């Protein structure tokens, strides 16, 4: 069950750029001399070539014409050398200060010197590149990293992967602090590809924070597979922030019986950010609460695309998406709730609200329901509008200056999605990011 449709192949210059890039780096990628690794990459590259770079006539990319928005492909970073990185300078003090087990990927490479996740209690961690060195290691690792169908971002992230976090949390393990995956796409005009996989054993509990920052015109592609075992709980916050960078991220989340998945996604700016994902219920009585916020101005283009796939009965899903757009920014939310035959007693709700602060901003939304079971309660809502004049008037009549009143209302608007984060450090950091965005105008 996917939002994608078959894409007809066409070897236009758009595809050729990626194929050329692969040809130029394939000998130097991690595991280049291991046949299993090579086969794994090339399967993904073939899948990419068959799909082609999506454009607006491909339904799932209707509002994000990648062919038009991504006219260049940068050289791949993370192969040779090592870049100088300052974590605090890159992600800000508030985020850097969160007490966590940290895994830092900078310039496409795992940075053991900046990370603290190695040897953390209850966590088995390895950077992907370390598992691609021998045929024996690679065989076992790659068997657990299949390529999802019709996912252009996953295909690119796999073909070019230089590293990624492989995390496994033992059954019943309850982590005492969050795991913080920090991805810094630091080099100007470089492309980075990472592939992550996280497995939570039955009954485990964990919080994962992902921070993606991009400097300059970096391009970052990543694919994450999350598998949540029976009765396990995962809280997952993802923040993407940049000015001119291009982020393409895709994820697949599977939930076992009675599992709980609580993601919070926030995207601030970026020349192009496309974050797509599938959350699939494989067992009954599981639930997910997805909260997302988009803040964009300038010429930013931010696209959240999410499929919640109810493949099992008695599951519950909630989605809340808040979008704030200024200047010429474009925001997209495509949300699909699919209820498969037999997934009775499904309870699915989805809400997307957009706030347009400028007449040149654009919000496109496609909230979709696809339902094949009769005993279900599903609903979605979508609104778009500007700041409520009455609320503005109320605040101004209390002596609050216009700019501050606007900031208050916008912060409250996105707060509805972000306030659900219960990690105090992260909560404060997100508040700070929103405040900084509002103040930057």
């Amino acid at each position, binding site marked *: 069950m996917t939002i994608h449709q078959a894409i007809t192949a066409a070897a236009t210059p758009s595809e050729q750029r990626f194929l050329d890039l692969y040809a130029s780096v394939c000998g130097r990628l991690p595991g280049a001399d291991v046949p299993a690794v090579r086969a794994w990459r090339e399967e993904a590259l073939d899948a990419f070539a068959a799909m082609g770079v999506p454009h607006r006539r491909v339904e799932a990319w209707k509002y994000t014409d990648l062919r038009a928005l991504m006219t260049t492909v940068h050289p791949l970073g993370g192969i040779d050398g090592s870049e100088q990185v300052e974590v605090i300078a890159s992600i800000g003090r508030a985020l850097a200060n969160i007490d966590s087990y940290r895994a830092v990927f900078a310039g496409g490479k795992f940075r053991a010197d900046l990370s603290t996740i190695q040897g953390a209690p209850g966590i088995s961690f390895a950077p992907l590149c370390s598992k691609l060195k021998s045929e024996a290691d690679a065989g076992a690792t790659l068997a657990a990293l299949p390529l999802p169908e019709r996912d252009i971002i996953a295909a690119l992230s796999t073909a070019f992967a230089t590293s990624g976090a492989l995390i496994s949390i033992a059954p019943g393990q309850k982590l005492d602090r969050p795991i913080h995956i920090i991805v810094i796409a630091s080099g100007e005009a470089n492309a980075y590809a990472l592939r992550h996989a996280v497995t939570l054993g039955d009954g485990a509990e964990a919080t994962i924070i992902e921070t993606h920052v991009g400097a300059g015109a970096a391009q970052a592609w990543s694919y994450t597979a999350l598998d949540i075992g029976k009765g396990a709980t995962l809280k997952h916050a993802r923040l993407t922030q940049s000015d001119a960078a291009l982020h393409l991220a895709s994820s697949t989340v599977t939930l076992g019986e009675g599992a709980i998945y609580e993601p919070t996604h926030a995207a601030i700016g970026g020349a192009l950010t496309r974050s797509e994902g599938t959350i699939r219920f494989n067992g009954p009585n599981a639930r997910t609460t997805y909260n997302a916020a988009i803040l964009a101005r300038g010429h930013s283009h931010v696209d959240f695309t999410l499929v919640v796939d109810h493949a099992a009965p008695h599951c519950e899903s909630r989605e809340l998406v808040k979008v704030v757009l200024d200047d010429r920014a474009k925001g997209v939310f495509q949300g699909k709730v699919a209820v498969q035959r037999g997934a009775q007693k499904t309870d699915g709700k989805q809400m997307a609200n957009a706030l347009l602060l400028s007449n040149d901003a654009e919000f496109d939304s496609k909230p979709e329901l696809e339902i094949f079971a009769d005993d279900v*309660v599903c609903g979605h809502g979508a609104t778009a*509008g500007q700041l409520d004049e009455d609320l503005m008037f109320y605040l101004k009549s209390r002596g609050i200056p216009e700019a501050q009143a606007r900031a208050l209302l916008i912060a409250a608007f996105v707060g509805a999605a972000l306030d659900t984060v219960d990690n105090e450090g992260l909560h404060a950091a997100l508040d700070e990011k929103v405040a900084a965005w509002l103040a930057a105008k």
Partner: protein
Amino acid sequence: MAEQDTIERVSEIDVDKYKYGFTTDIESVRAPKGLSEDTVRFISAKKGEPEWLLEWRLEAYRRWRTMEEPTWARVHYQKIDYDDLYYYSAPKSAEKPKSLADVDPELLRTYEKLGIPLREQAVLAGVEGAQVTAPRVAVDAVFDSVSVVTTFKEELGRAGVIFCPISEAVRDHPELVRKYLGSVVPTSDNYFATLNSAVYSDGSFVYVPEGVRCPMELSTYFRINEQNTGQFERTLIIADKGSYVSYLEGCTAPMRDENQLHAAVVELIALDDAEIKYSTVQNWYPGDKEGKGGIYNFVTKRGDCRGRNSKISWTQVETGSAITWKYPSCILRGDGSRGEFYSIAISNGRQQVDSGTKMIHLGKNTSSRIISKGIAAGRSDNTYRGLVSAHRRATNARNFTQCDSLLIGDQCGAHTVPYIEAKNASAQFEHEATTSKISDDQLFYCLQRGLSQEEAVALIVNGFVRDVLQQLPMEFLAETQKLISISLEGSVG
């Protein structure tokens, strides 16, 4: 009376109890089978059309040859062989225009059986047998490819209203047809509209002059009778400044094993302060229980609110057709114009419905409202697909959309695919959609009051679609309520 009704309905629980499935035995004249430039010329010649219209058709035909059939809708069907169809079929006796007195009695009997009043003194009884006196309705009766009769033409003429078959309008009012034909749905619009432009045979033409409130309801009744034919009608309604017209459309077809194609185009134009209310009760033959036969209903309907403060309102009740592919839309071009869409789409058996609307806000202070109720039963699929968009200059555009789906049985599917595009900060869009089944509590309550399961479901479903029913003209209301319960027969348990 009502009880008897229910008992009868319950006793014939089956999807293929389609009551308009009879055929009329009548000699007809057909175009040669297949589609070519000659077919287009044949139809044009039959209609005695001027050169410009033939050229217009041929251009559409040539374009159509280069187009591909759309596949984006959630409907599945065997590829249509367009060369294995008759594109024109007319009752032999209807070849020349005549008065009602000259119409073949066989045809009159057909319409009588369908409950359509063609005699001017007749009144439309809402439910057969019930003595309901309703306002008079002018009817244009289209049988296969031709209009056989149009009633109340003289009385309408006195008010200045033109209501006639479109082929007659081409002859008598070429300036109006030429000005507006294809101005809302251009020949290049989409695959089926282009095909229609090339081969359309008849349909209704309405022109309401400035400041006139049309003195009666206008109505067209479409009947497909002949085998292996497609029906391609074209309707053009123009409401000049400050005028008002309410138009009803009904359709049925015989039960046949084959699938028949119906590809119509409807264009509405509302000038300053004008209002058009367009209601459809679509009851084409839906095919049998196994999905054999039935009409493919691929229709392009679009209204253009061209003038300031104009208003176009679509109301549709879709119960028939094997496949429905239909999106009555409004282009809100004039400042302050308003578009409305009220829809009930019911699918049962193996029917597939992909229907919805487009509200395109171009002018300032435009508003639109969409209420869609989809009911899926049996093994059917029911999809709402809609677009609401506000362009950059559509300041203060407003939209409210509500689409609810009701599922009856666990083998059907209900889907909602709305597209919302806001390009203006002052636009305010609200969209909500729900999907649910008939609540056990409601059902229990009704059963406990002594209603049977069937009656209870009919009552609850009628409540579910009430918002839309209220928009229907009185004459259609009783008929529609009955249609809804018939369509859902056999779907419970």
